[in-house]
C-alpha cells in the first residue's frame, strides 16, 4: 500500500505542478491555453534525452525549462496580439506539433517505441540513518508549513469573518489527524487481503464526519460541500504523508522522487503566491478582468501576457521532468491533448485564479481516478466510463457551482 500511495502522491503532485502553470496563465491572466501538454512534453523529452547524453540532471531540467519558455514565446508572438480565441486554437495546434515531432523524429526520440533506461534522480542514493531522519524532518517541516497555509486560506475563503472558539482549531486538527490515521488503519489490512477492519473504519467515519460537522456548525451559512471536500482532501493528503514517512524510512527510489517533488512543489507554490500578491500579479489580474483598462493605465499588456505564458510553460516543463521520472518509460502517447484537459478539469474544479484551489483540485481529481479504478470493468471501458463521469461531474458543477467546488460565489455575481 505504501508503494501505491507514493505513486498516487507523485501523480497528484506532478499534476498539481502542471496545473499551477495553467492556473497562472488562465486563472490569473485569462489566457486560454489548450495546449499546455506541449510544455509538459518538451520538458519530459529534453530532460531524459539530455540525461541519456550525460548532461547533469539539474542542467537537463533547466534546458527543458528554457525550451518550454521558447515554445511559449513562439506561441505568444503568433497570437497574443490577437483576440484570445486565437490563442486557444494555436496552442492546441502547437501541442500536437510537439507530440507529432516526438512521434516521427525517430532518430531523436525513438518515436512510438518510446524512451527508457534514462538516468533517474536519487536512483543510486542510499541514505544513512541521519540523512533519512533529516529528509523526514524536512518533509515534515514542509507538511506543517503547508497545513498552516491551508488553514489560513480555508479561513479567508469560507469563514466570512466568523471566528472559531479557542478550542475549535485544535479540535478540528485532532479530528482530522485521527481520521487520517484511521483511514490508514482501515486501508492497510484491506490492501493485504485481510478484509475490512471495522473498528478503524468506524473511527474514520466518526472523526472525519465530526471534523466536517464542527466547521459546518461554526461557520454557519457556508455550503457544506466545499468544507467537506477540503476536509476529505486533507485526510487523503495525510494518508500520503504517512505513506511517504514510512517510505523514506525504508528508502526507495519513488519515495525519494516524491520527497524531491514535494520540495519543488512547495517552492513553486511559495514563489507563485509571492508573485501573485506583488504588483506584478495585480497587473495580471487586471489583464484578466479587462485588458483595455490595463492598457489605458499604462501597462504593457503584451509583455505581461508573454511573461505569464512563458512562466506557466516553465512550470509545466518542470512537471514534465517528474512525469518522465515517475513513468520511467516515455512515449508520445503520454502527451495527448487529454492531459491538457485533465489540467483544465483540475483548475476548474478548484476554482480558477486560486493556487490553493488548484492543489486541492489535483488531490480530488486523483482521488477520483484512484477510486474509480476499483469499478469492475476492463481497461478500455473503464477509461471511457471515467471520462463520461468526469464530463457529467463538470456539467453538474457548472450548473450548481460555476465558480468551482472551492471557489467563491461572490466572484461570479459581480457585474462587469
Amino acid at each position: 500500500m505504501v508503494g501505491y500511495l507514493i505513486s498516487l502522491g507523485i501523480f497528484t503532485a506532478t499534476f498539481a505542478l502542471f496545473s499551477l502553470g495553467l492556473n497562472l496563465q488562465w486563472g490569473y491572466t485569462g489566457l486560454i491555453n489548450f495546449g499546455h501538454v506541449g510544455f509538459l512534453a518538451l520538458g519530459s523529452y529534453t530532460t531524459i534525452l539530455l540525461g541519456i547524453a550525460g548532461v547533469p540532471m539539474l542542467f537537463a531540467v533547466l534546458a527543458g525549462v528554457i525550451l518550454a519558455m521558447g515554445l511559449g514565446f513562439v506561441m505568444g508572438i503568433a497570437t497574443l496580439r490577437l483576440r484570445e480565441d486565437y490563442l486557444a486554437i494555436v496552442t492546441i495546434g502547437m501541442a500536437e506539433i510537439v507530440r507529432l515531432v516526438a512521434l516521427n523524429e525517430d532518430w531523436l526520440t525513438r518515436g512510438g517505441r518510446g524512451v527508457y533506461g534514462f538516468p533517474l534522480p536519487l536512483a543510486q542514493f542510499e541514505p544513512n540513518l541521519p540523512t533519512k531522519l533529516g529528509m523526514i524532518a524536512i518533509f515534515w517541516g514542509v507538511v506543517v508549513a503547508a497545513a498552516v497555509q491551508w488553514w489560513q486560506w480555508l479561513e479567508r475563503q469560507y469563514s466570512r469573518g466568523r471566528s472559531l472558539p479557542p478550542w475549535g482549531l485544535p479540535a478540528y486538527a485532532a479530528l482530522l489527524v485521527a481520521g487520517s490515521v484511521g483511514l490508514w488503519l482501515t486501508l492497510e489490512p484491506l490492501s493485504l487481503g485481510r478484509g475490512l477492519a471495522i473498528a478503524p473504519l468506524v473511527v474514520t467515519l466518526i472523526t472525519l464526519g465530526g471534523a466536517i460537522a464542527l466547521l459546518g456548525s461554526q461557520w454557519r451559512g457556508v455550503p457544506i460541500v466545499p468544507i467537506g471536500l477540503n476536509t476529505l482532501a486533507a485526510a487523503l493528503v495525510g494518508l500520503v504523508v504517512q505513506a511517504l514517512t514510512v517510505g523514506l524510512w525504508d528508502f526507495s527510489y519513488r519515495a525519494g522522487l516524491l520527497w524531491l517533488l514535494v520540495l519543488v512543489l512547495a517552492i513553486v507554490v511559495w514563489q507563485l503566491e509571492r508573485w501573485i500578491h506583488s504588483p506584478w500579479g495585480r497587473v495580471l489580474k487586471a489583464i484578466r478582468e479587462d485588458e483595455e483598462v490595463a492598457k489605458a493605465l499604462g501597462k504593457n499588456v503584451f509583455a505581461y501576457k508573454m511573461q505569464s505564458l512563458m512562466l506557466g510553460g516553465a512550470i509545466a516543463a518542470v512537471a514534465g521532468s517528474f512525469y518522465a521520472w515517475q513513468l520511467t518509460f516515455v512515449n508520445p502517447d503520454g502527451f495527448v491533448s487529454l492531459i491538457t484537459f485533465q489540467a483544465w478539469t483540475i483548475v476548474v474544479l478548484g476554482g480558477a485564479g486560486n493556487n490553493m484551489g488548484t492543489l486541492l483540485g489535483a488531490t480530488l481529481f486523483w482521488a477520483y481516478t484512484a477510486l474509480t479504478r476499483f469499478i469492475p470493468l476492463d481497461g478500455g471501458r473503464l477509461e471511457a466510463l471515467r471520462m463520461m463521469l468526469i464530463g457529467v461531474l463538470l456539467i453538474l458543477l457548472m450548473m450548481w457551482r460555476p465558480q468551482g467546488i472551492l471557489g467563491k460565489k461572490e466572484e461570479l455575481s459581480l457585474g462587469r
Partner: protein
Amino acid sequence: MVDEPSIAPVSSGVTQSPDPNLLVATGLCKCFGGIHAVDHAEISVARNSITGLIGPNGAGKTTLFNLLCNFIPPDQGRVIFDGEPISHLPPHQVALQGLLRTFQVPRVLSRLSVLENMLLAAPRQTGEQFWNSWLKPLRIRQEEQELRQRAWHLLESVGLAAKANDYAGALSGGQRKLLEMARVMMHRPRLVLLDEPAAGVNPTLINQICEYILQWNQQDGVTFLIIEHNMDVIMSLCHHIWVLAEGKNLANGSPSEIQTNPDVLTAYLGQ
C-alpha cells in the same frame, strides 16, 4: 519586453517659453469602412485648462478620444503632447507620458478590490517586474505602503474609503464613475480625457463630480478634456469648448461664444 524608460520631456518646459498648449492634434482622420468617423479634425488643449468637447450623437467625439491616445491608430494626422509627437507610441506608452483616459461606460476591474483597482493605476512600480521580487523586495514593500496611503487618501476624498476592500464589481454605477476617476488620478496624470463623466449619474453626484474635477484642476494642476452632453456641466466647468459635428470641427471658443454661435445651435437643433 520591458517598458523603456520614458524620455524626459521636462527640459523644454522650464528653460524655453513653453507652448501654451499641452496637447495639439491636427488633421486627424479615421474611416471605418466608408464612414468618415473623424474627418480632418483638430483640437488643442491649453495647459491647466478644463476644455470641453461637445457635439451631437455620432459626431465622432469618442473616436477622436481614441485617436488622441492611440487606442485606435489614426489614418492621418499628428498628435503632439507637451511638445513631443505621440502618434507613433502604443497606448500604454501614451499613458506613461501622463495622458490618461476614462471610458464612456465606466470599466472597473470587477474581481479586484476597490483598493487594488487604485494601486494598479500607479505608474512604473518596481514590483511590476516579476524579477524585482527577488532583487528589490524591500523597495517594493516600501512603495506599496506609500501607494496604499495615497490610494486611501484619494478614496477618502471621493467618499469610497468605506468600500476599499469590497470587490469593485459590487459597486453601483455612480460609484464606478468615481472609482474610475480616482483611479486615473492615482497615476498622477498631466492630462485626463474624461468621456462623459456625468452620464447616467444622479444630479447630486454630478455636482460632486464637478467639484472633484475643479479641485484636481486647481490644486493638482491637472488638465482636463471632457466629452459631455450635459450642457450645465460643460458651461460651468470649461474654459474653452470645441464643437465637433460629423467628424469635422464646427466651432471653438469660450462657453459664451459657443452658446450664441448659430452654427452650433443648428447642428444641435437641426435646421
